[in-house]
């Protein structure tokens, strides 16, 4: 199959990637199977060194897999590189590409030429994109003087120059402040929503970002996909009971009186919350309530009257993606690996480690 209309946007089968290194080879990917449908906003979530960036490099034709196959809209990443490069683009967090001596507008125009836009068409598209990403005031500012957030917006505009069908975003909000990160996320959503079929593959280790943006997420660790599903599906995997946070004006008998009700597994005072007492009735009572299922909540609410309590607030507690990750991996995102594998994995290489700078300005 080559470039079939019905082909998945991304179709990876049995992808492995081993880097030759001393003292021991580094296995960045250990058998990845992944299918992303056209039009999907798909996330790869995992800690540094999980293999996310390596997978993106393979899918963007910059790296060959050690074994396995991958196709983009049916085009083979190993043999049909030019076709893939015409329909995709990529932006990475902290990207410092281009030439500081150029103005933002000029830099984008230069890249537009690499994607085959005509000279005038390139300037027009660049101006439109600069306005779209909110860099209008910086259009004639030298790239070297742009802030991190402005630079990333410019990178984002660069990624859209060729109107890609697949957009690879590798930690695009890395190092951005809250406002700039939000702005970049809005751009991602707005761009994809504009035309059906546009596909985004986002890697991130920001769980909230993945939760907010992605329709489906693959949780990756040590080169393997541990789980794939929508954020809600993934969370349901770790939440076997229904958990509610119940705030009452008073509660005669304390949380124990709720624990005895049918369908209630446990009822305990919420840690850190001020608890009302007979002596100080102004304080409310906050209880974490674990039920067999949601249906048991009706019985609890009905019983509260009999206990002389009135509901001040009621909220269902949902697990976070971090809870999902901990459940799947047995450790948190920031914890050390247990196998002795260095945390600085294949996709955690810092820029500019190579040292020397161009004495003539890298033009």
């Amino acid at each position, binding site marked *: 199959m080559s470039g079939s209309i019905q082909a998945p946007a991304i179709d990876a089968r049995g992808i492995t990637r081993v*880097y030759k290194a001393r003292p021991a080879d580094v296995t960045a990917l250990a058998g990845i199977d992944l299918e992303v449908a056209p039009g999907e906003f798909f996330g790869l979530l995992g800690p540094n060194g999980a293999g996310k960036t390596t997978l993106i490099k393979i899918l963007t034709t910059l790296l060959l897999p050690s074994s396995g196959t991958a196709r983009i809209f049916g085009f083979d990443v190993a043999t049909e590189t030019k076709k893939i490069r015409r329909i995709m683009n990529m932006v990475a967090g902290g990207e410092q590409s281009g030439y500081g001596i150029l103005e933002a507008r000029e830099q984008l125009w230069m890249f537009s030429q690499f994607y085959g836009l005509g000279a005038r068409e390139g300037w027009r598209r660049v101006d*439109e994109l600069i306005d779209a990403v909110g860099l209008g005031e910086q259009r004639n500012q030298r790239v070297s003087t742009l802030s991190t957030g402005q630079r990333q917006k410019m990178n984002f505009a660069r990624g859209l120059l060729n109107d890609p069908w697949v957009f690879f975003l590798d930690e695009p909000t890395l190092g951005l402040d809250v406002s700039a990160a939000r702005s970049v996320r809005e751009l991602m959503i707005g761009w994809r929503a504009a035309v059906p079929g546009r596909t985004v593959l986002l890697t991130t280790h920001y769980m909230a970002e993945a939760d907010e943006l992605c329709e489906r997420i693959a949780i990756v660790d040590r080169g393997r996909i541990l789980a794939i599903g929508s954020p809600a599906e993934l969370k349901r995997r770790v939440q076997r009971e229904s958990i509610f946070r119940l705030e009452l004006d008073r509660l005669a008998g304390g949380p124990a009186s709720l624990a005895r009700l049918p369908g209630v597994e446990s009822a305990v005072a919420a840690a850190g919350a001020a608890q009302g007492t007979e002596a100080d009735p102004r304080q409310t009572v906050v209880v974490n309530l674990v039920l067999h299922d949601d249906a048991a909540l009706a019985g609890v609410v009905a019983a509260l009257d009999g206990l002389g309590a009135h509901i001040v607030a009621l909220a269902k507690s949902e697990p976070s993606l971090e809870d999902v990750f901990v459940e799947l991996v047995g450790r948190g995102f920031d914890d050390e690996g247990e196998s002795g594998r260095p945390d600085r994995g294949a996709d955690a290489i810092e820029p500019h480690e*190579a040292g020397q700078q161009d004495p003539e300005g890298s033009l």
Partner: protein
Amino acid sequence: MAAPVLPVFVGRPTASPQEAANWTPRQVAANNLRSIVGRAYPRVRGLTREPSWLVFQMALPFLTTSSFVFVYRALDAPPAYIGFVVIGGAMTAFWLNVVWMMAAQLYWEKDQGNLELYFAAPMNVMSVLVGMAVGGLVMSSTRAISILVIATFVFGVSFSISQWFLLVAVFILTLAALYGLGMMLASLFVMWGREAFHLTQLMTEPVYFVSGLNFPVGRLGFIGALAIALIPLAVGLDAMRQLAFVSTGPTGTPDPATETLILVAMTAIFIGLARFLLQSMEERARREGRLTVRWR
């Protein structure tokens, strides 16, 4: 999250990924030509952005050229030797550009993160190398012409040219061979990674010497002959000197017509090798991760 759908995000030139992926040969050719212009752009633009190059790339090399002129005058050398030094000084601009901004350039590009963007774009990466060469030619030509004109005026160099056409052809072929060599070395340097800086230094002073930058290369005997056979700067300089100063008599080197043929062969070999090495380098880099992993 509210997501603004802006008109610029809507307009797209293709109806499907398959349509977008299949380009006509004309589109491919246009893409490669535009990429040459695109890559040359920052170098040409840089000329007007950083006027300090007037000092560093014109005034300082002029001092070096001047010092050799004064040495030859003190020794009562034939007047043509002053012209030899002036031509050598002008050609230094091209060699420095080839070594620092061609051969070592892909290494810097890799370090900056540009290299992977070049490879991820649809054009032939040879276009990037040619664009670098074109931009470099514009930069260096400005410097070379300035040195040539100023030095000729200041030191009163008188040229005696009998074959203008051949001289222009030799000059163009010298540049083609030089930048072909630069493109070839660029592919090699990116594979050698961190050693590029040292290799670049290694290729500066020794090449000045064996190319006879400030003296007739024929004086070097066998080493000079070897340089003429291998280094475009050496053969180009010697041919240009023979053509620009016909009264100097035998130089102990091949005649200009033969040296022109050597330059033609060098151009073809270097550009052919550059193309081959770039393809091999890309394949090897994709296999070993050298395009994307900066510590490799």
